[in-house]
């Protein structure tokens, strides 16, 4: 993989091949984030295009204070959040912990046993039902292997909040999965 500085300087000098490489290097990251934020499949590709157009326009302002991938992810996150706002989808409020937990893990027809693949699909469906911030933190940490500091840079959330959301999201998912596994621990 080409060094960020070399790649950026080539793109800025008008090298289209370098920009193609930049897109190829980051398209999975952007697709993951957009897929987690946006449900509408048609909107997803359009938003990915907007992200890379913005990257192209603003690349001259990138100052190498972070990794290029973190900067690209920041743009994807901001555009994704703006898109949700335009569609009037509420994202700012994390529901009250008690009521949301009760609702999320409520016991609605949990099947007795699930194969691994089915379990993965089930958990991913559950991830989609989580608040936006939880979803994005989970994806950046577990799928894109970003550390807390990088997630803080991308989302603007303090590191403590990132850790807390990550913990709570996993905890909620675990409680729900436990119901499905039918192995509730009686203490």
């Amino acid at each position, binding site marked *: 993989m080409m060094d960020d500085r070399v790649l950026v300087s080539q793109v800025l000098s008008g090298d289209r091949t370098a920009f193609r490489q930049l897109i190829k290097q980051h398209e999975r990251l952007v697709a993951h984030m957009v897929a987690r934020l946006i449900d509408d499949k048609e909107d997803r590709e359009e938003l990915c295009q907007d992200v890379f157009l913005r990257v192209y326009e603003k690349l001259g302002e990138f100052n190498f204070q972070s990794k290029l991938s973190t900067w690209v992810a920041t743009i994807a996150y901001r555009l994704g959040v703006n898109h949700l706002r335009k569609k009037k989808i509420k994202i700012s409020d994390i529901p009250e912990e008690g009521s949301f937990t009760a609702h999320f893990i409520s016991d609605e027809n949990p099947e007795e046993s699930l194969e691994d693949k089915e379990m993965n699909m089930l958990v991913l469906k559950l991830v989609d039902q989580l608040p936006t911030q939880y979803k994005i933190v989970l994806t950046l940490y577990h799928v894109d292997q970003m550390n807390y500091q990088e997630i803080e840079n991308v989302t603007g959330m303090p590191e403590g909040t990132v850790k807390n959301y990550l913990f709570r999201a996993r905890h909620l998912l675990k409680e729900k999965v*436990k119901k499905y596994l039918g*192995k509730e621990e009686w203490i």
Partner: protein
Amino acid sequence: MKTKDEELQNKIVAGGADDSADGLAYKKVFHAITVEPSFNLPFNFADTLIRQIENKEAKSTNYDMRWLAVGIFVLFLGAVIGAILSGFKPNFGAFKFWASYPGLFAFGLVFILFLQWLDKKWVNPRLT
């Protein structure tokens, strides 16, 4: 509860085993959340995007050139109208001496063009 759960999460992240119901459930969760979302961009996404940028830039260049042409035309028109209204007669006064040194004039012109060429060919690419 949070502390116990946090410890359990950390243990499983570190690859440790835990046979409790919570441990097994966490194992399933951690396995599933590392799966990439199923959305993929089309294979020609980058090409489509670059074409889009090129079209946008071409349009923008045409637009700029049109405004430049309009600007030059208006400037020329203004100069002509100004000259007519003020009765201005062109006088090359100080520049007439060039007529005695046509070779020097030609050399100066060629030298300036040569410097421009050098700048474009060697200096600018190294700066960018």
